[in-house]
């Protein structure tokens, strides 16, 4: 049994938890929150609740607001008044008013620092090791890549954090996912994440905080680590964590909100205390051979419905329980696929490169590298495919343009857009038409997620770029050898 009186070794999660305990009663803790990220969709009712109760925001300085979920990905410079959707416009204006009333820093649409909340936090240096970070968005788990305990919350909890800068929590269990070995070419953080979800299932992480470790995880860049932690929520876990190391510190150093001078040295020595003790005990351990992984793709309507790109669509009757069999039958029907067919035979109509999972500069570079190589072989986006690239923030967009990545995408026939969540959840005008099939770098292949009756296959940025050019799902490692 964990938690015995004699046990002093702690996991990374235990350490962050202990460092934020304000109070604990009957197994329920009041946990201090270091950073609260907010956006337009999940906050209006929380601010309204505060107003009704006559409460104030306790720490506006520990709160940061962006507009990302329902903003259009073109014409952002025209401002909120030009947003065509009336309800979206009202929601954006409500956020602007709420942050102004409460003195919260806000990057509005069109500000170069604006973008998807989980891209902006790290990019600004707001996200730091050992912190507790929450946001009314499930992919807050992204920030775990810095060794911060970060997770999504509902609107009632947003209101609770605004009013008290704390959250009432029960402690989760510890799970270790160790990915050994070196990843092969064309295999990315996204593929690790999908393979893990395939292994444990979308409910496999329920009740756990997962720490990712092992050679393959350490070798990932910060971007790759963010992709991996981003998808932890799709495995049902409360949060994902990776212990901070020199790569983490180097990423933060010099960012606008990073500590400077003497404060930097002080922060650094604090951050270095956040790691799992050698003899700490995990409640569950999963070991994955990273060297055996191949690029992954989803076939169904749950992120656990995942297979290697070289694989075939499974038979729904092969699932264990009646509700899972029913869900698999429904998924194949919805996706327009047949049991046993090679997944690479699925012809696609759309490609979406973006979302908080894969819209950072490295994702842009990975996709552009595939596009450029294909271009040198005389290949462009397949004529029947509409492909779009949506950088995660204004700063990612600017950096990509400085590197000439936009020119590569545009020359090959991709649409280069302005930042936002875009077709990850299709609250803005970017959406799939019914039955359209999309290779997407986002995180959810749920029914209707990218547009009513739209069909989503989750893949890495390089795989999405390759699919755009091949016109069907394809193994990025070999697609250029196929005849055009």
């Amino acid at each position, binding site marked *: 049994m964990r938690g015995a009186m004699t046990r002093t070794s702690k996991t990374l999660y235990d350490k962050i938890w202990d460092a934020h305990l304000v109070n604990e009663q009957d197994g329920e803790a009041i946990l201090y929150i270091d950073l609260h990220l907010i956006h337009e969709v999940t906050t209006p009712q929380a601010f309204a609740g505060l107003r009704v109760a006559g409460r104030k925001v306790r720490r506006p300085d520990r709160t940061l607001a962006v507009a990302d979920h329902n903003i259009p990905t073109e014409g952002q410079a025209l401002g909120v008044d030009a947003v065509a959707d009336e309800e979206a416009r009202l929601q954006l204006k409500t956020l602007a008013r709420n942050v102004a009333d409460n003195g919260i820093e806000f990057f509005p649409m069109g500000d170069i620092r604006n973008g998807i909340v989980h891209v902006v936090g790290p990019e600004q240096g707001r996200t730091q090791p050992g912190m507790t970070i929450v946001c009314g968005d499930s992919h807050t788990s992204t920030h775990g890549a810095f060794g911060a305990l970060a997770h999504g919350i509902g609107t009632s909890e947003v209101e609770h954090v605004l009013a*008290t800068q704390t959250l009432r929590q029960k402690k989760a269990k510890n799970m270790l996912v160790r990915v050994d070995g070196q990843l092969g070419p064309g295999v990315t953080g996204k593929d690790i994440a999908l393979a893990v979800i395939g292994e444990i299932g979308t409910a496999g992480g329920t009740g756990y905080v997962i720490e990712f470790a092992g050679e393959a995880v350490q070798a990932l860049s910060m971007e790759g680590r963010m992709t991996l932690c981003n998808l932890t929520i799709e495995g049902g876990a409360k949060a994902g964590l990776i212990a901070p190391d020199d790569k983490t510190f180097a990423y933060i150093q010099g960012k606008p909100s990073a500590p400077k001078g003497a404060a930097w040295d002080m922060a650094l020595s604090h951050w270095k205390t956040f790691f799992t003790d050698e003899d700490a005990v995990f409640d569950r351990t999963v070991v994955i051979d990273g060297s055996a992984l191949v690029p992954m793709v989803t076939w169904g309507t*749950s992120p656990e419905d995942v297979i290697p790109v070289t694989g075939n669509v499974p038979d729904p009757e092969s699932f264990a329980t009646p509700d899972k069999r029913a869900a698999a039958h429904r998924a194949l029907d919805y996706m327009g696929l047949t049991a046993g067919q090679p997944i690479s035979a699925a012809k696609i109509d759309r490609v979406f490169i973006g979302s908080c999972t894969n819209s950072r500069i490295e994702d842009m570079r990975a996709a552009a590298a595939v596009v450029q190589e294909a271009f040198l072989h005389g290949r462009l986006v397949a004529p029947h495919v509409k492909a779009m690239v949506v950088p995660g923030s204004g700063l990612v967009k600017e950096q990509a343009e400085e590197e000439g990545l936009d020119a590569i995408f545009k020359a090959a026939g991709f649409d280069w857009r302005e930042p936002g969540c875009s077709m990850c959840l299709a609250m803005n005008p970017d959406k799939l038409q019914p039955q359209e099939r999309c290779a997407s770098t986002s995180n959810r292949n749920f029914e209707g997620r990218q547009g009513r009756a739209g069909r989503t296959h989750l893949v890495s940025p390089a795989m999405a770029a390759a699919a755009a050019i091949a016109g069907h799902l394809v193994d990025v490692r070999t697609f250029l050898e196929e005849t055009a």
Partner: protein
Amino acid sequence: MRAFTRLDGRAAPLELANIDTDQIIPKQFLKTVEREGLAKGLFYDFRFDGEGAEIKDFVLNKPEFKNASVLIAGDNFGCGSSREHAPWALMDFGIMCVISTSFADIFNNNCFNNGLLPVVVKPEELSVLMEEAKGGNHMVSVDLETQTVVSPSGQVIRFDIDPVRKEKMLKGLDAIGETLMHGGDIDVYESKRALSQPWLGA
């Protein structure tokens, strides 16, 4: 928050695993700045076709389930997005209790913060409830005090629930008000932290 003590009502069977919050309430209904009026969007793509016409064989469109107050659903209910619009929509429709073998974490928290009771039962108990609800009698009773569900045929199923959450749910306590009673502890924590981690501000 609404208190939940006991509920007698119709239970609608929805035998699908991994029902996510995008299915419970699709994104086009998230542009509201209100909590009310979300029933119209509940399970929208299950209830209505592309033209907005009712899909007759979806369980909540059947006459006997139009006023269901309990939902019996497959494993991992409420996974996906953190949107609290999911419990708001369920409650606005009249569903005050969901029974499943497991709930996704954020959805589960959101339910407790609104007074919607998530009941976790064992797989064999879920099958019993699911099968019975598909039959002629759909009435169940859920009692939070005694932690029991009585199935349409009268089988009594006991469920576990965290005692702290149970207490709050029974009384309908306001979580923020409760936490603010510990305001002194938060002040102390913040002043200590201002010394040890000054770069985070005071």
